């Protein structure tokens, strides 16, 4: 899956890919203060490519939990499950339904997205990407977006969560790359000097099929240098 990090102070964006084996579960967000945790499980194409450089990986399952509300939500391209304690509610992507309970609202918009709001705080948007059912290679997957991330605590961490705090970076020495449309540059971020490539990724919040291009500086090697610590630090054993 690819990640886009908007950096409001710079009016720019950073992006990177995480290439891990299907089945790997990544910690995307963990906020000990609000009790919110978001994990994502990686899936691959229907036909696995032996070459890790050409294989596509996506998020196929998202687990969103609020420890204080004792609520868990599991989203897959097939269904949406909501647990209140041990009691489970199951919804389909064919539903248009709004579920409200103390401290949380979940709105499923038929075949499009889920908007999940926790009180007056953060809002998560899960986008359903559907491909042709009989597509020989690709399969349905999920997109995950965070709105009002500043409302999460300063202790928030995770592959996405670490970027909810103010971030600074400097880009210099912009020069042509191998692909003329993708210049390369040197970026200094988190006390690391990285070679980055100008490119673009798409924001699919408005329309899962078209998307809006977001220009960004691409950090290579699984975001190495941009991410705190090692990628292995973000791998967790289970969705919840």
């Amino acid at each position, binding site marked *: 899956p690819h990640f886009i990090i908007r950096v409001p102070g710079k009016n720019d964006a950073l992006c990177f890919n995480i290439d891990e084996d299907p089945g790997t579960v990544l910690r995307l967000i963990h906020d000990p203060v609000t009790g919110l945790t978001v994990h994502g499980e990686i899936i691959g194409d229907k036909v696995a490519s032996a070459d890790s450089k050409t294989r596509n990986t996506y998020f196929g399952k998202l687990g969103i939990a609020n420890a204080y509300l004792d609520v868990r939500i599991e989203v897959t391209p097939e269904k949406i499950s909501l647990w209140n304690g041990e009691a489970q*509610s*199951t919804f389909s992507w*064919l*539903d*248009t*339904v709004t*579920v*409200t309970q103390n401290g949380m609202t979940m709105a499923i918009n038929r075949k499009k997205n889920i908007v999940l709001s926790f009180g007056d705080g953060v809002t998560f948007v899960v986008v359903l990407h559907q491909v042709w059912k009989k597509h020989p290679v690709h399969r349905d997957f999920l997109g995950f977006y965070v709105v009002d991330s500043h409302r999460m605590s300063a202790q928030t961490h995770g592959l996405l969560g670490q970027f909810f705090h103010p971030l600074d970076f400097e880009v210099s020495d912009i020069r042509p790359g191998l692909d003329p449309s993708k210049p390369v540059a040197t970026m200094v971020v988190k006390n690391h000097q990285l070679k980055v490539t100008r490119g673009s990724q798409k924001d699919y919040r408005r329309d899962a099929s078209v998307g809006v291009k977001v220009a960004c500086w691409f950090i290579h090697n699984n975001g190495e240098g941009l991410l705190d610590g090692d990628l292995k630090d973000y791998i967790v054993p289970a969705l919840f």
Partner: protein
Amino acid sequence: LPEMVVDGIEVYSTKIHCRVTSRFAHNTVTTRATNRAETAKEVSFDVELPKTAFITNFTLTIDGVTYPGNIKEKEVAQKQYDRAVSQGKTAGLVKASGRKLEKFTVSVNVAAGSKVTFELTYEELLKRNKGKYEMYLKVRPKQLVKHFEITADIFEPQGISSLDAQASFITNDLLASALTKSFSGKKGHVSFKPSVDQQRSCPTCTDSLLDGDFTITYDVNRESPANVQIVNGYFVHFFAPHGLPVVPKNVVFVIDVSGSMYYQKLKQTKEALLKILEDMKENDYLNFVLFASKVRVWKDHLIQATPENIQEARAFVSNIAAEDTTNINGGLLRGIEMLKKAREEHQVPERSTSIVILLTDGIANEGVSRPEDIQANARNAIGGKFPLYSLGFGDNVDYGFLEKLALENNGFARRIYEASDATLQLQDFYEEIANPLLTGVEVEYPQNAILDLTQNTYKHYYDGSEIVVAGKLADKDMNHFKADVKGHGAFNDLSFTEELDAEEMEKARQEQDYIFGDYIERLWAYLTIEQLLDKRKKAQGEEKENLTAQALELSLKYHFVTPLTSMVVTKPEDNEDQTAIADKPGDDQVDVPPSSAVLVGYQPPQTPYYYVDGD
């Protein structure tokens, strides 16, 4: 084939054809017979149809001449009927037959060598219960039939998820081979076509082994909780979400332990309660109120259904004994107050629902005993806050009173038939209401867009059931339809939205139109009449008159034999009418013996006159 001819009559064919489109069943039963004797003979036509069905037509064809049915207001028809009866010319009747059915019977004298064809049509909306729709047919031909056939064609826009057909009389492989059932996508088909040899009760017998229940059950796909269909300016909205947790229940069982319950009925009640206790969930609350001349409670307040408490409840139930008289009012009010107090004092979870279940086998004869007073007391005490369900055990109950009591309080009444399976009947009832998934369900449509809506608010939505709302579009050509369903779940409030755009509406119309074009309009009419009749049961004075007038108007317009109408088949006979009438027996009529068909005489060249009636 002489053996095909019994007492001079050969039944050439009996065909039952069911067409179901979106739960709305249109059934036609046709029998063709020939009098092979040398003298005039009587031919009978018996059909057992569900009590919930409305007859829509009956025709009699004698030697190629068809006499169609006409729906008339019951009083008008009754006068003709009375006149005919006074002249010694009588009728075919519909009478209660068992628990689920009523029997339509008509007999006619057929001249030697003449042919007669009977055709009865009835319609009903199949209701979803415990996750399936059930169509129930009684099969009992009086003799071997050359062409016997039951066929059902089911079309469900949501797609069929399961389909089964069972016949209680199919006990051997030979007969099983006559039954085929299949479904794919939106279409399902059932066919039962036993040959004459397959119909024989033994290889050399001339009597039929076809005698019993033929039941078709199916369900539809539930990818989406709701489905809306629109045809010709009428819509129907089906709502049946699943996958939601069960809302905890606070149940008070108000049980009659008067003398008449002694032994068998009390034994069965106790067995059922013990089984119900086993099925209770730990977050439910319960209590028992026993009433005879005095009112006794298990506990002063509602108790959580923990394993320890359930064990104690079992011991209490096991020791229930019958006493003397029947104080329904006292028992009922005690149960209602207990539920109200539990809510007010926060003894029960905030997100829970309350239910009163009244079981009685008799008529109040202790304390407040006027039915109207008991009804008023219960109505005032409950104040619309929770439903009351009435179970009338056996024949000695005032079922009309119990039904009104339940209907006035958002519940329904059920008969518990005094039989060896009474325990199961009680359990079945409980299972129906044991799993509320939503409470306070409101189905909403944009204002001014919809007319003549059927009931759109429900106290509960139970797992395995279905909420059906139908109505007319204010603008027949509207190209966007939206419906919202709101309800309270076990942990959260839910608001489902169903939208159809012009393209979807047109697509749906095209695929359905060719099958059963006006079925949504008829479904709407059926549902509206059914609900008007229910409302009528609890209404009084001018309101009752208005409801009656509305139900009558629709019954006449849509050709339904309801309790307010009769159907007449007329054939002038030497300038003199002959009449036949058939009554649709209501559930408050008890002890109706199995139907005795009475005739309308047909003696060629005489010309008879028939009635088909519903009450």
